[in-house]
């Protein structure tokens, strides 16, 4: 990708994530059909799509939780799918993940949750870890909640705490799965602003999977629309709003699917199943 710098000269940047010809199928159902994607450092890349379009599956591939049927994913020029366990662990330490439900460990306090990656992967002494944990919690606006249990927090606060944990190891890539799902609009926009703040402060690559149009226009540098296992659209915000692709238009105009109900074929379907 060519980026314009202040001096109006262009420099070429290597993508931080390269996905080539990625296929995934569950049984006969093909979820991802030959996806190619480049994501660059320091950009906020939003993957849009309706439920069941394969965006969560794509994210799980990036997190290393599920293996695709075929294709390659390389992160920082390392093959995610074919490296050995220690190599993959090193790669995972450079990635932070914000899960849809937060996925905080319910048996640990908020502070312990955020401290866990540091305790596991760094040789720092407990006092230093505690200071770093408090800093991360302050960053997300939860400074007074070090000793609270996740169950004592509200949905939005839990997301913030989960974000603090994702940031614990100062990752270069942050993956967010539906950051505003299940939150009221005001709390959701708060999370969006937090993501913007992180982008400005840490210059990391942020990948967000969502279907919230409002937050897309607030945070995205580039947008991709995933539909039926392929990308229907990849481009900037402006290109997205001006796109004439029918799927993009449908998404933007929030139009429902045209329902085609054919009584004969429905009866046939019932008869076949008997």
């Amino acid at each position, binding site marked *: 990708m060519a980026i314009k710098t202040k001096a109006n000269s262009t420099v070429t940047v290597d993508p931080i994530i390269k996905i080539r010809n990625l296929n995934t199928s569950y049984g006969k159902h093909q979820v991802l059909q030959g996806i190619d994607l480049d994501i660059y450092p320091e950009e906020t890349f939003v993957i849009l799509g309706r439920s069941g379009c394969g965006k969560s599956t794509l994210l799980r591939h990036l997190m290393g939780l599920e293996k695709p049927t075929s294709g390659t994913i390389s992160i920082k020029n390392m093959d995610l799918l074919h490296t050995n366990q220690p190599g993959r662990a090193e790669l995972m330490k450079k990635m932070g993940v914000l899960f849809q439900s937060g996925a905080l*460990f319910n048996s640990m306090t908020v502070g312990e949750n955020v401290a866990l990656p540091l305790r596991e992967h760094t040789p720092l002494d407990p006092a230093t870890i505690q200071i770093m944990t408090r800093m991360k919690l302050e960053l997300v606006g939860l400074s007074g909640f070090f000793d609270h249990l996740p169950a004592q927090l509200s949905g939005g606060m839990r997301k913030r705490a989960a974000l603090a944990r994702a940031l614990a190891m100062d990752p270069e890539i942050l993956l967010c799965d539906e950051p505003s799902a299940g939150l009221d609009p005001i709390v959701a926009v708060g999370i969006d602003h937090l993501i913007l703040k992180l982008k400005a402060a840490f210059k990391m690559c942020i990948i967000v999977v969502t279907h919230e149009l409002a937050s897309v226009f607030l945070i995205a540098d580039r947008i991709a629309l995933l539909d039926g296992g392929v990308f229907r659209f990849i481009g900037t915000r402006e290109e997205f709003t001006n796109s004439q692709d029918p799927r993009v238009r449908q998404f933007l105009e929030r139009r429902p699917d045209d329902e085609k109900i054919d009584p004969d074929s429905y009866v046939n379907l019932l008869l076949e199943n008997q």
Partner: protein
Amino acid sequence: MNSGIKTFGAVGRSAGEFFAQVARVADLARQTLYWSTVGAFRYERIRWNETFTQMVRIGVNSLPIVGMISFFVGLIIAMQSAYQLERFGAVVYVADLVGVSITRELGPLITAIIITGRSGSAIAAELGTMKVSEEIDALQTMAINPVSFLVVPRTLAMLIMLPCLTIMADFLGLLGGFVLGVVQLQIPYSAYFSHTADAILFKDFFTGLSKSVLFAFIIALIGAYQGLHVRGGAEGVGKSTTDSVVTSIFLVILSDVLFTALFFSTF
């Protein structure tokens, strides 16, 4: 004809599913062994803090219930056998009977069954809830191995505490028989004591203990397996918890049969 083929298909599928499940349990067993030995030294470590927490939960907190039940079982065995032995005028042999049956069989077995219901199910429910709320996924994305982080401490705690509980169950079971023998059956306590001491061989005690180590591994492994393979939400956790108890008790008793056949059938 068609239904016959369907039946064959169903049998084949469930057999295939069964063997796939056995393979997954074996794989979890392999990973648990690896991460508690070689892997622990090479990449990770053993989390002793968590292991001690689990030892308290599995072992110390089960002391009252295990102790009480084995004491009562000792009493029951003594009462039941006294009723039969009285007819031969051999009431004093209650001591032998209680001693041998408790140390060889009932101590380890009853402890294992109580701990399956109490701690095996807890392991399945806890890991299952973590799986459902994406906590296991979160561990993996943090490059923390769930087997090393969750399964190994629980398995080690089980392997350490179940034999300890069994020793206590043995003693309290013997005490139950002793109390009944001395108070109810009027056997002089010195006679009861010497009969018990003569009847129990070190081998009885030792095989009972080695069985409990085997049981411990089964309970922890099945609990962890059922927890890590939960599908669906809260309902899936409930189903896995039930399955863990049923499967563990079945496997504990099955392995007990094999173990007993191996060690005692030739004598």
